[in-house]
């Protein structure tokens, strides 16, 4: 029996989602019995141009070269899975889209900006090619990765759980930080997958898994305002790791630079 062929590609990112593979521990060796890993630079496999059954793509698109490379990855893979916030929504680095200051920043920072080839806007993978499955999260969890691989090995579509963090928070019997401490928790609009990590650690969710299904972001933002958060502070809640996810972007922009109450005039 032929083992399914797998590749792990990196685009603009922090490597954290790839590390999810390397952090699998012994499951990594077990995984190797089930699949053939052909390209995964960090783990030492280099064969970027080979055809694979499943390509995992980490990172966002931020250079012209990356735009070309993703086309090739798409063409070479039967099933393309984007992993992590960078790949699914642009990630933290997509914050630069907000200011539209790319050229200025680049020129100011680099002595030789002509060598820096970057796109004006950071894009998620799905902006350039068709993506078969998106695994959200910053970073993705190993449970998500393994479940996706297992489903694909059974030749079925992996489950896309879009429920919100709140449901998991209650399953975990964590105490709601919003209700007990008026903390601006993003749990009610954030997709589950992390196991309600932040509330379990007594802090407000900061939305690292991106928007859930039917995210009532405007309603939640109003609630934050009720807690006394200033518009910019509300905007910062939505415009962080998944700032380019439409639901977060929409609400974030409503409050972004809309006045902090202490303007000069």
């Amino acid at each position: 029996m032929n083992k399914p062929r797998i590749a792990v590609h990196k685009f603009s990112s922090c490597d954290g989602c790839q590390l999810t593979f390397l952090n699998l521990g012994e499951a990594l060796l077990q995984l190797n019995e089930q699949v053939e890993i052909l390209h995964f630079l960090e783990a030492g496999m280099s064969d970027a141009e080979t055809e694979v059954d499943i390509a995992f793509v980490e990172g966002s698109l931020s250079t012209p070269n990356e735009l070309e490379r993703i086309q090739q990855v798409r063409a070479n893979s039967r099933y393309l899975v984007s992993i992590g916030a960078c790949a699914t929504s642009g990630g933290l680095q997509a914050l630069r889209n907000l200011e539209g200051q790319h050229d200025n920043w680049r020129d100011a920072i680099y002595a030789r900006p002509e060598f820096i080839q970057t796109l004006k806007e950071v894009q998620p993978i799905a902006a350039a090619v068709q993506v078969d499955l998106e695994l959200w999260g910053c970073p993705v969890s190993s449970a998500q990765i393994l479940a996706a691989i297992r489903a694909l090995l059974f030749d079925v579509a992996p489950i896309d759980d879009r429920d919100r963090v709140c449901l998991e928070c209650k399953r975990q019997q964590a105490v709601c930080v919003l209700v007990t401490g008026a903390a601006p928790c993003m749990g009610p609009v954030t997709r589950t997958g992390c196991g309600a990590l932040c509330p379990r650690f007594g802090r407000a969710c900061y939305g690292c898994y991106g928007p859930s299904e039917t995210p009532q972001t405007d309603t939640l933002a109003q609630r934050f305002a009720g807690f006394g958060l200033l518009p910019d502070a509300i905007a910062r809640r939505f415009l962080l790791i998944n700032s380019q996810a439409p639901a977060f972007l929409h609400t974030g922009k409503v409050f972004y630079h809309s006045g902090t109450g202490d303007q000069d005039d």
Partner: protein
Amino acid sequence: MTSRRIRIDVPALTRVEGEGSLRLEVRDGQLHELGLSIFEPPRFFEKFLEGREAEEVVDIVARICGICPVAYQMSALNALESLSNDSPGHWVQQMRRVFYCGEWLQSHALHIHLLALPDFLGFDNAIAMAERHPNEVKRGLQLQGLGNSLIRLFGGRSVHPVGARLGGFHHAPEAEDVRALIASLQQAQSDAADLTRFCARLPLPEDPQTFISVALHHTDCYAIERGTLRTSTGLELTADQFEQHFHETHKPDSTALWSDFNGEPYLTGPLARLNLNYSQLPPFLQQRLNEIGLSLPCNNMFMSLIARALEIELVIAEAIRLLQDYMHPASPFTPLTLQAGSGYGMSEAPRGLLWHRYELDDKGLIQAARIVPPTSQNQARIEADLHRSLTAFGLDNDEDALRLRAEQVIRNYDPCISCATHFLTLEKQEIE
């Protein structure tokens, strides 16, 4: 020697964190061209920090690097908390060290087993190596897993942990979880000792060279999460003096900046730390040094592998020591008020010195940030090393051998290229 021209292009370096490439050309027995370039696209992190609240910094900087998020969080906290008149207190200080030990453990174990060992045992990668050396690989994965568990204890997850905050932690571990982890740490001690011995028996190349070592030093302990900066040239600096001696420049074919110490390349990381602080190793590690016959300071970069193994033993022992009498605190953090101003902070990331500076305004928002990660600091050293070692190795070696040696040299530094791309600051302009 006959006239010969070799061009080696490693378009994508494997088994390093992040992406970089190596180009080298040998002409007539001379290294004609040598370039390690980093083409991680710039991510402008320092820019995103502007206008953010101090509280948000730890969650943002963690994402500069998935391999050493704890280091980023700790350097940032050191910098920001320097703007307060209070300190987070003893419990927090100790537990931060444990948290950091977890990162050293996971990162070093990952580096040794998944990135470096295949070079020395003759495999393309660790997975292939696992077929012949299953026990060694499993041991490595277990040590790495243990490091992750330690990070999770305080951070919930090992990549981009959520536990750290200004003044301490969001959450204190339960005593029973701590007890369980101590037991695993104790069990791992003999594995770690075996690992050091195993590494010491490897036929590592002899390659003495001279370089400046730079590392943090602390009077009470082997510096990890805090300390003052020391150089093998005898300088001792506090974090705010860093910029007087260390400068960054932009190299055209790279998105990374290069750092120098008064114009010279220098080394940071495990070997530099060991060179400067070996006298602070606990007695059992002094014995281990004797046992394996390693004398310090050491000028062979290939010994970095052993330095990592020794540091693995060290952090396991440290974590056990610090957790032994664990008490659940009344509060896992001390509320701190930060004053406006410039805060400087540093700590020892697994692969070397990590320096941060933040300017905070009176609304508690970040006005400017500057971050200098280890890889940019080692970059000049790596090129100097490549020059030297390849020449010493013999440029008449065949292409494969040269390439392998070059890659080994690079891996000695465990460069983390993903972090190597955001230390882009406006100040650079002024220096140019």
